[in-house]
């Protein structure tokens, strides 16, 4: 694996808390003296957040789709109609 991909993997382990205490300490020390590593770590944290936003949006779309499908079932639609009549 390329070196920069190895770094991505290390950052991932740090962010997903998969490092031992010793490894974590070492990583944090490196961040103090390597501004690029710090910057990459912050950016990668942001990437994970964006992935979570994207994923939830996908899930919401899926639920909305299921809802629309279920509305085509007469008994389901009728139940809702009765409740909000």
């Amino acid at each position, binding site marked *: *694996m390329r070196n*920069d*991909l190895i770094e*991505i*993997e290390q950052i*991932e382990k740090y962010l997903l808390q998969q490092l031992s205490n010793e490894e974590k300490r070492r990583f944090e020390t490196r961040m103090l003296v390597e501004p690029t590593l*710090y*910057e*990459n770590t*912050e*950016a*990668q944290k*942001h*990437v*994970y*957040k*964006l*992935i*979570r*936003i*994207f*994923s*939830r949006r*996908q*899930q*919401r779309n899926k*639920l*909305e789709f*299921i*809802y629309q*499908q*279920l509305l085509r*079932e007469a008994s*389901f639609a009728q*139940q*809702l109609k009765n*409740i*909000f009549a």
Partner: protein
Amino acid sequence: MNDENLVQLYREVFPEAALLIKRLGGNLEEAKDAFHDALLIYLEREVKGVLQIHTSAKAYLLGTAKILWLRSKNQYFASLPEDIEVFVEEENEMANEEQNVFDYLLLAGRKCLEMLKAFYYDKLSLQQIAESFGFNGVRSATVQKHKCVEKIRAELKKGNLYEKRFN
């Protein structure tokens, strides 16, 4: 949970959730929003393996939807259960994200995004990902995943978000 089970769960529980929200004074749209959020929380916890097994899915969804609806109307005064609080905090944090975040994501390509969702959100194994995305084994899926993260990260950095935020 597979799609079939999810549809079945939806079919079975939503009318009850709707009735519950209606009795509290809500409308159909609000009932659906609260129910969808409750389902998201449920599914995320299922994936993480942190659901409490002694509660039925139905009881969990009804209870959670009720709290979420009350909270949206500022009628919930107790402290939120931990699972709901984590979700609500994340949602608030996400709402602060700039509108153009999806531009960064889309630059990585659809396949990358679907793969990243499968790994980080759906928590599929790299083996499963290799199979469903047609990679030649776990190692190649791992490399692809890192490359996708790298691509998005590079775009974010190009957008100067970090200079602005941290310098």
